[in-house]
């Protein structure tokens, strides 16, 4: 079952649409879907007030796919708590995309905003463009970060990717801001591009792999060895990499892999090996 949502106009104030969720759309008639409640700023609206809704292949037994045709960068919490099915956004998606997601797939052709995959438990999120800050992070004050699933960002991501991450995989095709993997408990983060620094700050366990440049390594990390390759999700990534252990300020035992070739400035650490 494919349901297409087309924004009726360009949204100005924040729109909250937790109801855009394949699990919720399943077993609902088009009329019922149209009446689902969303917020536009402080006004209650229905989904059909904001979107033109069309349903194709009305086989109720088939898995539900929601296609959003158009830019929804102001629409927050798309796919929040979804557990099955698929959402495709042809354009940019707003904050909290796939928050607390438990399964299924979300694909965005454009950019995603901050808190993408926040607290997700399972499923896959794939962003073709860039993403904002706090990818996979928990809510303020909580240590319950990403607890499973995969987030793939083909472009760049902002600060604090994988904050308090517990398990799962985050892949960033481009560059990341500061504090990738901050307070990480476990899990894996792979960055194919550069990091703006402070990678792995206050991490306790887990693995961060940076194939690009990093301005410096935190003083609370210690160099452990040079390794020719590193495994990410079963795949070999060619190095060589400097392997650092930290964050020792937290008595942590996380592993931070940083490309040797791209970071000649880190050569000074070799004398400690």
């Amino acid at each position: 079952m494919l349901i297409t949502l087309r924004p009726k106009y360009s949204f100005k104030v924040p729109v909250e649409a937790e109801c855009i969720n394949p699990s919720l759309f399943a077993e609902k008639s088009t009329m019922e879907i149209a009446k689902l409640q969303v917020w536009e700023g402080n006004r209650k609206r229905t989904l059909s007030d904001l979107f033109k809704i069309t349903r194709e292949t009305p086989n109720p037994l088939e898995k539900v796919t929601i296609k959003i045709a158009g830019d929804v960068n102001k629409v927050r919490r798309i796919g929040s708590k979804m557990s099955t099915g698929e959402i495709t956004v042809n354009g940019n998606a707003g904050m909290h995309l796939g928050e607390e997601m438990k399964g299924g797939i979300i694909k965005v052709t454009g950019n995603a905003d901050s808190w993408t995959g926040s607290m997700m438990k399972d499923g896959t999120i794939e962003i073709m463009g860039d993403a904002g800050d706090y990818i996979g992070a928990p809510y303020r004050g909580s240590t319950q970060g990403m607890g499973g699933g995969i987030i793939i960002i083909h472009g760049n991501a902002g600060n604090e990717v994988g904050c308090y991450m517990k398990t799962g995989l985050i892949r960033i095709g481009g560059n990341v801001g500061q504090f990738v993997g901050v307070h990480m408990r476990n899990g894996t983060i792979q960055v194919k591009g550069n990091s703006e620094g402070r990678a792995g700050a206050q991490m306790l366990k887990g693995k961060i792999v940076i194939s690009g440049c990093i301005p410096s390594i935190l003083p609370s990390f210690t160099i452990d060895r040079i390794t020719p390759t590193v495994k990410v999700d079963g795949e070999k990534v060619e190095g060589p990499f400097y392997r650092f252990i930290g964050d020792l300020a937290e008595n942590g035992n996380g592993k931070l892999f940083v490309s040797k070739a791209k970071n000649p400035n880190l050569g000074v650490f070799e004398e400690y090996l």
Partner: protein
Amino acid sequence: MPKLKVSLLTGRTINQGKGKEQGKLSEEYQNSVSICQMDPEDIKLLKVRENANVKVTTDFGSVIVKAVKSKRAPHSGVVFIPYGPWASVLANPKTHGTGMPSLKGEIAEIEPAITEKVLSLQELLRTCFRR
């Protein structure tokens, strides 16, 4: 013309604190915040005299302020503009998801602007907001 790449700090000063209590329209206030405290050596590098006007530029805007000698040098490469409308023109609004813009340690360029004048508060507002 000489140009310097510097790190821009903003913050409170006692004169700014006093000035704001005297009223934002007061001359004391405007004089206290339309300045740029610099290392005397940096002022020399710009080939200007103390109290000359300089133009400070960041990725976010540029503004004319008066270069004054810092009393607690050396701190070459670091300049300081007190909080206020002039510093705000230059400020980096990015919050990185924290709500807090980046107001300290921004990269800036500084160059002499002897022929240009420091705008008054009203003039500055008019240029910024066209109102």
